[in-house]
């Protein structure tokens, strides 16, 4: 059974139909990819799946439970986490604080008003573990805004995994990265795939085909093909769209 399923999703903005009868499913422990040309509806699809937009029609289920139309905060508490294509960090806070705020144990203490967060060695340690995973432990006390671009991308993912999700949505994780930073990110995702179910939107086809177990191709607001990277390279629709060649 799939961990996350979306069936017959429709989304329109005014007269513009952006998603038309999209159905997707992501298996537990898999790395799934969503690809497609600019304007295909990938990001809108991501926003619908992660609660930023409510679908006009269709059903979304997570671990068998209906979650259609739930808010992002409700989804985060259920174990659905995401990163953003445009950097979305707490820039003025230290790197470790960015991660700490996202930890479930920190969230459980959200009503606590008299105990300093920095008195709690367990919280600091938990945040450090996350920073270790994304390779930022050495920069824990630097302001997030001062990090280089590649490290900020890693912190984006760090904040998302700090929530200890069951499924992790990554929106264009290589966006703006150079070749070396992209290689480092691929290495990081290979490490993370042992712990999380991952869904990625990605424009870097070789990156996506290299990492994903299954890929769905979105075009004109619809899923036009899906399968393993090898199957998609041979798919006539994908070949016709030119996306397969890029991989």
């Amino acid at each position, binding site marked *: 059974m799939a961990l996350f399923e979306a069936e017959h999703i429709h989304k329109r903005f005014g007269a513009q139909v952006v998603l038309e009868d999209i159905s997707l499913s992501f298996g537990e422990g898999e790395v799934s990819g969503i690809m497609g040309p600019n304007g295909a509806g990938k990001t809108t699809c991501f926003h619908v799946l992660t609660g930023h937009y409510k679908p006009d029609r269709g059903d979304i289920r997570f671990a068998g439970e209906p979650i259609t139309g739930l808010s992002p905060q409700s989804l985060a508490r259920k174990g659905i986490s995401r990163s953003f294509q445009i950097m979305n960090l707490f820039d003025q806070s230290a790197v470790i604080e960015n991660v700490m705020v996202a930890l479930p144990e920190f969230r459980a203490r959200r009503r606590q*008003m008299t105990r300093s967060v920095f008195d709690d060695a367990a919280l600091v340690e938990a945040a450090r573990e996350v920073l270790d995973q994304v390779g930022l432990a050495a920069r824990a006390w630097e302001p997030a805004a001062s990090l280089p671009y590649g490290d900020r991308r890693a912190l984006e993912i760090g904040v998302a995994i700090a929530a200890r999700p069951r499924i992790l949505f990554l929106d264009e994780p290589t966006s703006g990265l150079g070749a070396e930073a992209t290689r480092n990110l691929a290495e990081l995702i290979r490490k993370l795939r042992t712990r999380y179910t991952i869904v990625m939107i990605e424009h870097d086809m070789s990156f996506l085909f290299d990492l994903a177990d299954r890929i769905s191709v979105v075009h004109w607001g619809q899923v036009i093909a899906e399968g393993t990277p090898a199957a998609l390279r041979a798919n006539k629709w994908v070949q016709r769209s030119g996306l397969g060649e890029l991989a």
Partner: protein
Amino acid sequence: MISLSDISPRSGAWVTPQMVIVAAAMLSAPLWLRSVGLYQYLGIEIAIWMIYALGFNLLFGYGGLHSFGHGAYLGIGAYAFGLFQHHVAVSLWGGLLAAIVAAGIAGSLVGAAVSHRRGIYFALLTIAYGQVAWFCAIKLHWLTGGEDGLLNIPRPALDLGFAVVDLNDNTALYYFVTAALFVIVVLLWRITNSPFGRILQSVRQNEMRAAFVGYEVWRFKWAAFAISTAIAGLAGGLFAMAQESAYPDVMSLHQSGLIVMMVLVGGGLVNFWGPVLGVVLYFVARDVLGAMTETWLLWYGLMFVVMVMFRPEGLAGALHVLRRRLGVPAALRRAPAEQA
């Protein structure tokens, strides 16, 4: 650009060295105020406005919520204190509790309405609700005394159980208000460094991300509004006691703007102690410049303009930059738990 999160010390202690310095200055003030040409009542005003400004900065500096109608809650606290003394009982604790509860309830109701908004819409709504309160204070003559205000509010005695302190004496009242100030300082210090405070600062920086890591953003804005207005109510109650009256003027847009100005000039956006500096600067400027020229507010306004143009982080920010230039180590950048 420096920010609250950048330079705020991360000490988890209940009492910090800065608190000790401010306490020493405040507690010794009755001994030296007159020798520098000032007077005891000014100390009371300063301490009350410090309470008000620190509470306001929880919302303004830490929450990034620009309330321009906060005078309403100072006024509600003042009226609640006065009405309690006139119609219920002459009681210090009863009056102060009434002030805190009345302003807190008003703030909770307004907060519930405005906390789903942000930016300019939040600011405009706070002005609108502030003006409603000001208008009610003027028109509900039977309750508030209208433009004349609520007069002859007594200063109830402080009953400590083993002794009774007469607060009609300005020095005694000053020490009482200073004690209240330190309760508020410690409370706000803990709140700003608590999980709640850190989440509030995260909401200020990035509402969307805060929602995506699992927080009901509006609840934090609402809670900050309620706490801040309850503290404004306490300040209002103390103000009514100090003035022995309550006037609608404290609820006016002008007065609400004044607290914003004090917090900004002091550096509330970048430092916990910014509002304290801003209040001292304003009242000293009022009395020292005011003794020299009737146009003192013009000079204070010009200073505000210069500050916004050249040092928008305010006095606290300027001091921080100076410390950095002099090579004094920056604020604690490591968690106490890690240092152990």
